[in-house]
């Protein structure tokens, strides 16, 4: 499976995401020559026909000015991503990418400044949610995984009725482990999916938990999920 990783002016974690996609593919043995190597997708590109999945990476697109993700969502590439998603293509938004997906309406909710207003960067634990998503096929619901948290605007918010809907539709992909909610997110929500499950976003950084030297490899399965779901491969 070939990934495309979006790059906006101000993106930061796009190379990390690229690296994670590569490692995931290699680990599944699905690295079929250079044709399937993950690639960066410049924000002005509109042709996504060569990729099977999209990562909207973390960072500070457009400096996070105005509101995190507010400007990036207008890019031509995001229009293409919306079509890609509507056609059922797998889309993963990480941190700033999650914010962009929420701003563009591909995911429900919004992300507000952390309750303590500071940027935080620490290793933490997530509980995998009940959501039905190809991205979660490498995890068990209820599984506890260790993934770094790093962000300043990661407080998940949705108005009561929307929140209720997200919960009752089982759209919660990840929750912060009890006592570890770093930002005041409602219901400890760290990540959600769209109704169909093919679009997922989360604030923590799975791409920083794919190599042993980083202290955890629990993020790898997320990048392998769609391939596992598609082929029935085992991670």
């Amino acid at each position, binding site marked *: 499976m070939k990934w495309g990783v979006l790059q906006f002016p101000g993106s930061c974690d796009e190379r990390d995401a690229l690296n994670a996609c590569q490692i995931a593919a290699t680990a599944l043995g699905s690295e079929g020559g250079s044709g399937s190597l993950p690639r960066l997708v410049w924000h002005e590109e509109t042709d996504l026909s060569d990729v099977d999945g999209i990562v909207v990476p973390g960072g500070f697109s457009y400096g996070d000015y*105005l*509101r995190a993700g*507010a*400007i990036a969502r*207008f890019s031509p590439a995001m229009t293409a991503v919306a079509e890609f998603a509507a056609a059922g293509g797998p889309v993963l938004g990480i941190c700033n990418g999650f914010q962009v997906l929420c*701003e563009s309406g591909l995911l429900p*909710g*919004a992300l*507000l*400044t*952390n*309750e*303590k*207003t500071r940027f935080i960067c620490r290793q933490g634990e997530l509980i995998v949610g009940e959501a039905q998503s190809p991205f979660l096929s490498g995890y068990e619901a209820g599984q506890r995984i260790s993934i770094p948290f790093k962000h300043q605007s990661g*407080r998940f*918010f*949705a*108005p009561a009725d*929307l929140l209720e809907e997200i919960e009752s539709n089982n759209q919660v992909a990840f929750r912060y482990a009890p006592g570890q909610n770093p930002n*005041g997110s409602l219901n400890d929500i760290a990540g959600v999916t769209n109704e169909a499950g093919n679009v997922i976003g989360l604030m923590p950084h799975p791409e920083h938990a794919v190599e042993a030297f980083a202290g955890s490899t629990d993020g790898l399965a997320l990048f392998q999920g769609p391939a596992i779901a598609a082929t029935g491969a085992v991670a």
Partner: protein
Amino acid sequence: MIQARVLIRPKEGILDAQGKAVEGALPALGFSGIEHVRIGRIVELEADSTDQLEELCEKLLANPLIEDYEIETVSG
């Protein structure tokens, strides 16, 4: 040219972390009798016409899920 001023505020009922931080700092700095601090954004700009302003606010300047906005045009 129209000079416009857009005020964008966190919606009622949403915890305003910045506002809360300011309220928290007040007593230590010797300020009393100040309450309900809310912090928002102000965007000032010049536009050809008012047509686009509404759209600009809806689509870009404010996120309707979490923010309210108000447009004040200073001169026409």
